[in-house]
């Protein structure tokens, strides 16, 4: 996983609530055995006509947003399914950060596993950032994970919060499986105790 420290890039305004995982990546593209290559179908049904041509009004089809690294979106971003293909598609397109007033829990969690930073802000802050992103002359934001703040084009900073473990993992690009495997003794201990108390949980498939 790539480390996340600071990120400066074009922010695409998506002023719409409840952008669900089916919108982020339609289900037919979940039929893959890979994690990569999904950027070309990110937001497919909003972004392309059925014949594959671009819908000119969609934000990522317009300059300067074709190279967006950040999305600023309405409430409840990522609601719906658990598909990790949603953050994979964002990442593959080049999006490393999504800013919204709220995120669906599973999507939020999946972002951190892929080096994407989801940032929760207040409604007032979102309105300001949405306006910044909508300024086609200068829609760049700078996200600083070390200081936990977003720098707006006018120089004003917007602070945000994030729990320490997730912040560390993003900053260091850490793999949490490795960290958990270091707790092997504790897992062994838990299993021994549970086997005593609830032996039926360990019986496996019937012979």
């Amino acid at each position, binding site marked *: 996983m790539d480390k996340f420290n600071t990120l400066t890039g074009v922010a695409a305004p998506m002023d719409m609530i409840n952008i669900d995982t089916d919108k982020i990546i339609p289900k037919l593209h*979940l039929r893959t055995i890979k994690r990569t290559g999904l950027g070309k179908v990110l937001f497919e049904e909003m972004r392309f006509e059925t014949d594959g041509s671009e819908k000119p009004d969609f934000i990522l089809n317009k300059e300067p947003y074709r190279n967006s690294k950040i999305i600023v979106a309405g409430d409840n971003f990522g609601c719906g399914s658990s*598909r990790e293909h949603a953050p994979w598609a964002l990442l593959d397109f080049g999006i490393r950060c999504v800013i919204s007033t709220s995120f669906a829990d599973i999507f939020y969690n999946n972002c951190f596993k892929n080096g994407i930073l989801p940032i929760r802000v207040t409604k007032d802050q979102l309105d300001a950032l949405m306006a910044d992103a909508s300024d086609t002359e200068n829609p760049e934001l700078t996200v600083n994970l070390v200081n936990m703040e977003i720098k707006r084009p006018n120089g004003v900073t917007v602070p945000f919060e994030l729990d320490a473990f997730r912040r560390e993992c993003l900053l260091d690009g850490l793999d949490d499986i490795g960290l958990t495997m270091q707790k092997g003794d504790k897992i062994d201990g838990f299993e021994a105790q549970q086997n005593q108390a609830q032996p039926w949980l360990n019986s496996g498939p019937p012979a």
Partner: protein
Amino acid sequence: MAAPRTLFDKIWDAHLVDTTEDGLSILYADRLLIMEMQPQAFEGLRMAGLKVRCPDKVLGVMDHVIPTHPRDQAIEDPVARMMVQQAYKDYEEFGVELFDLMDKRQGIVHVIGPEQGFTLPGVTLFCGDSHTATHGAFGAFAMGVGTSEIEHILATQTLRSPKPKNMRVTVDGDLSIGCSGKDIILAIIGAIGTAGGTGHVIEFAGSAIRDLSMEGRMTVSNMTIEAGARAGLIAPDEKTFAYCEGRQRAPKGADWDRAIEYWKTLPTDEGAVFDKEVTLEAEKIAPQVTWGTNPEEVAPIDGVVPDPADAPNEDRRRMIQRSLDYMGLVPGTAMKDVAIDRAFIGSCTNSRIEDLEAAAAIALGRKVADGVEAMVVPGSGLIKDEAEARGLDKIFMEAGFDWREPGCSMCIAMNGDNIEPGQRCASTSNRNFEGRQGRDGRTHLASPAMVTAAAVTGRLTDVRELETRSIE
């Protein structure tokens, strides 16, 4: 004396392997269900040289991409075939049990977990699918996870997670005739919204929940995620125990007695505090049907399509307008005046035997309306067998419904079953998102009885106006 705890608190506490200094918990995973949609998790293990820590606690299924035509026909779609072949390969290489496509026990992951006794009260259960909340109907903590989390569970049998908050939704009173668990959960989502439970797990309580069968409870818990909560729970009781007893993976003999004893300690203690409480009266719930493109956009069948002008704020107004444009509906239209082209009975929400019975009781002696295409997809091979033993298949086929092999089918529409652009489908599934059942298709979510009523009349219909017939 210890502080009173919720059902969720008790299960959480009983599975804590460790709590790290920053408040994240490492939680033991008693059960993992996997399906053909996450080959990347096995690929991750392979790349890191890791093995599956407890293959006995993992069960492999295939349900999302498989066709619902007879099983002796080959899978024609090369991509679907590749996904299935990859699953066979992965499960075998990592020693995970699999119900293959010819196995009668094969079916939708959230149907067969309970059916096999793999799902039990008090367990933690995870699966790479957001409708994993279904299993919470047994008083389990069951939650959908992403592919990376599956990989983490496969390797360590644990999950790292902050503890969600407790929320309780209480539904008291008697449910009206013609209403089911589906109407309860749609009414709840309509009341609290698609983000109403975000950050929480929801315990469903109250007499209307207790009065539901296990099938009805699974339908309620199944759609918890549509209210934003990753997990739903319902206190285990005698109905739960009766459902579990004798199932293939359920405890037997002395273990069974010990299990029951433990399970009886699980329900929420008197005086336990919830972070959020919501109450609904069952009597006020009418049969529900969605009009928009997320499950909170729902109305009673005797209601009308709403007017965006009445929305509480600008965000909401634009959302409703977008939904109506997509759905091709005009404000003020009576829900009962909406004509349909397709009807789908199935999915992890509503494909169990009780759902098929409710649908058959409406289908019996009636015909699918002219111009409507209707299908029934049972949740598992065992349910299909039971339905056929009781003649439900004949009722459906005589009425003009297609009777299919089990799978997710037109709930997610990635197996070749889908609706066409502009078509309108009454569906017992769980999501009415744009494009969910096929690009530019329009979905109206409702209960099995309501969808069957729509199929035979050709429009959204109040099932209470149709006579329910005895299928015995």
